[in-house]
């Protein structure tokens, strides 16, 4: 399912809403999660999962094609851990 298919499904279930409001609903949610992570905050959605930011230390990496070492700088990456409810739903 893509973003536009998600919007189409929600629109079909909420005929009273404008299509652009559904689009705004989905982008608001995703944007809000993105901004939280940008600030270094966590987002916890019970039953679904939690988003957080993990720090990766700098390391010496290698170009897999040429074998030359390159310095990989420390970075922050988005991380998602599934929630208990989701785990149960996937393993019934």
């Amino acid at each position, binding site marked *: 399912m893509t973003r536009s298919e998600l919007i189409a*499904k929600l629109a079909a*279930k909420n005929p009273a809403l404008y299509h652009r409001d559904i689009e705004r609903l989905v982008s608001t*949610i995703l944007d809000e999660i993105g901004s939280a992570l940008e600030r270094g905050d*966590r987002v916890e959605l019970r039953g679904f999962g939690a988003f957080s930011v993990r720090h990766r230390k700098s390391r010496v990496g290698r170009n897999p094609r040429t074998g030359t070492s390159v310095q990989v700088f420390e970075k922050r990456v*988005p991380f998602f851990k599934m929630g208990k409810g989701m785990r149960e739903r*996937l393993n019934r």
Partner: protein
Amino acid sequence: MAKTLTRADLTESVYRNIGLSRNESSDLVESVLEEICTCLEAGEEVKLSSFGTFSVQSKRQRVGRNPKTGVEAVITPRRVLSFRPSHILKDRVDNA
């Protein structure tokens, strides 16, 4: 200090951005999550452009170990949810 956002915060921004009631906003946030869950439950991938991709991975049975007691135990086959952030999201988080 890192803060934790919850459904209530998402509901609040939806309420401010769309102009429906708080109750409706809350129901809508829930229905977005539910739609995503239902799709994943069916084993389908959910690709949200400029955000990331959720996919379900099947794990085979393996022998694990209780890290606390050191006792070996069989881990049954299971399905797990994985999330691959898009480059856009990665850049946002790293460059902040």
